[in-house]
């Protein structure tokens, strides 16, 4: 499962995924990559985790009413991913697009396992998906990502802090334990799936200066020009 990349499977398009814990700054980085590619007149599509319209209403009901268990949490996210994968990602990759994914199956591998689902079961479920052609992992320390969440917006979200796991009553403490465990899972997967690890404690620009050349080096961007 996930043994082949889209390139290896003969797709003309390429899939680039970013991963990292909440507050790692990965969404900012992928957005800047998207703008950069678009300005070059390339065929680009951006897809976010947990964004299939139909599935989303079930997910948010489940989250709101606390109906979700580790098993249903896992399955409903897999449903969402499958919907986007089959209806959007695959057709666009067939049509030669550069597809940018804010989170990919590795998010599920990390989260579901931390929530107590067996790793083999989770990986088996996502067995229909191919491996990204390029995966960037934005590695931050917990202090930095927590600070970023505090600076940028808002209170910690219930599931982001892993409050459903009852690790601690204080959201920040819970966040630290939960995201710490996620970080461990990500790092354990890093070599297996060939993540390009970017030090995400650095300034935004410094990270982008690492990401862009790497991407240009791995993917012949000129091939993806829109007519």
């Amino acid at each position, binding site marked *: 499962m996930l043994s082949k990349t889209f390139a290896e499977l003969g797709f003309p398009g390429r899939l680039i995924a970013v991963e990292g814990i909440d507050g790692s700054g990965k969404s900012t980085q992928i957005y800047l990559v998207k703008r950069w590619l678009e300005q070059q007149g390339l065929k680009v599509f951006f897809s976010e985790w947990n964004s299939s319209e*139909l*599935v989303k*209403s*079930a997910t948010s*009901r*489940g989250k709101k009413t606390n*109906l*979700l*268990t*580790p*098993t*249903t949490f896992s*399955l*409903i996210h*897999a*449903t969402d991913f*499958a*919907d986007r*994968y*089959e*209806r959007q990602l695959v057709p666009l990759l067939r049509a030669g697009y550069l597809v940018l994914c804010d989170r990919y199956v590795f998010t599920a591998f990390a989260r579901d396992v931390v929530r*107590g*689902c*067996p790793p*083999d*079961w989770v990986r*088996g*479920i996502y*067995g*229909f998906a191919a491996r990204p052609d390029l995966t960037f992992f934005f590695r931050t320390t917990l202090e930095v990502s927590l600070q970023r969440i505090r600076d940028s917006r808002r209170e910690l979200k219930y599931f982001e802090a892993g409050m459903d796991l009852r690790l601690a009553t204080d959201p920040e403490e819970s966040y630290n334990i939960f995201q710490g465990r996620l970080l461990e899972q990500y790092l354990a997967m890093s070599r297996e799936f060939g993540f390009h690890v970017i030090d995400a404690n650095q300034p935004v620009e410094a990270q982008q200066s690492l990401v862009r050349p790497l991407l240009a080096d791995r993917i012949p961007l000129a091939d993806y020009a829109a007519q």
Partner: protein
Amino acid sequence: MPRSKVTRTVSAPAPCSVDEPRPRPRAARVPVPRRTPKRYYGHGVPGIPADTLSGKLIVVEGADGSGRSTQIARLVAWLESHGHGTVQVGLKRSSLVREELERAQAGNILSRTTLSLFYATDFADQIENVILPALKAGFMVLADRYIYTLMARDIVRGIDEVWLRNLYGIALAPDVVFYLEVSPEELVQRNFAKSHALDYWESGMDLGLSRDMFDSFVQYQRLIIEQFRRLQRTYAFTIVNGDRSADEISRELQQKIATVLFGQR
């Protein structure tokens, strides 16, 4: 749990007489079913060991028009008249995703893996929130279809069986599974007698077997029957000839259930 002490009730007075389709008032003494070992097909549901489940899971499988609901209604009446608590479950009844699943089917907008996972989510929600709690409390849980229908439908649509087995590793192996097998020709007649129409999904129209709905229905049901016969070898369920009268079928189901509840008699 008080029931956990019970081992055998062979000496109990006349448990579950089988040959009456319509229940009559029973003797006041209600024998407690014997405890049988339970297991999950795979890792199961974390935190709920199978050996804590004292109730019985009874599954009735079969196409629309095979007489499933009739038989389940009769079983419920029969079991309750003998003093057993019952709970009923079925596909697409979870509070988590039922609504979205129905919307998706109405618009026919989901691709096969997505639909498969949607159904699995619905199933998981019910197993965790209804089936297992009821079994823990010693109820007879009657399932109107179970994972076998979901698997058969998916396999016919080209989904990998190994993938499905992993997915449904969360399922509990039932105490007894009946498959009401009815020939496609007879199913057509029963569906028409009931509603004068064939259902889009039960006709497998999404598969493009034939543009003619009647043809598609017959071909699709034949494919499903084939899969059920194949799955039967793995999951050892009881294939019931559903072409017979409802009374005859009831009697067969009751006999088998009495054996499951109270052992060979």
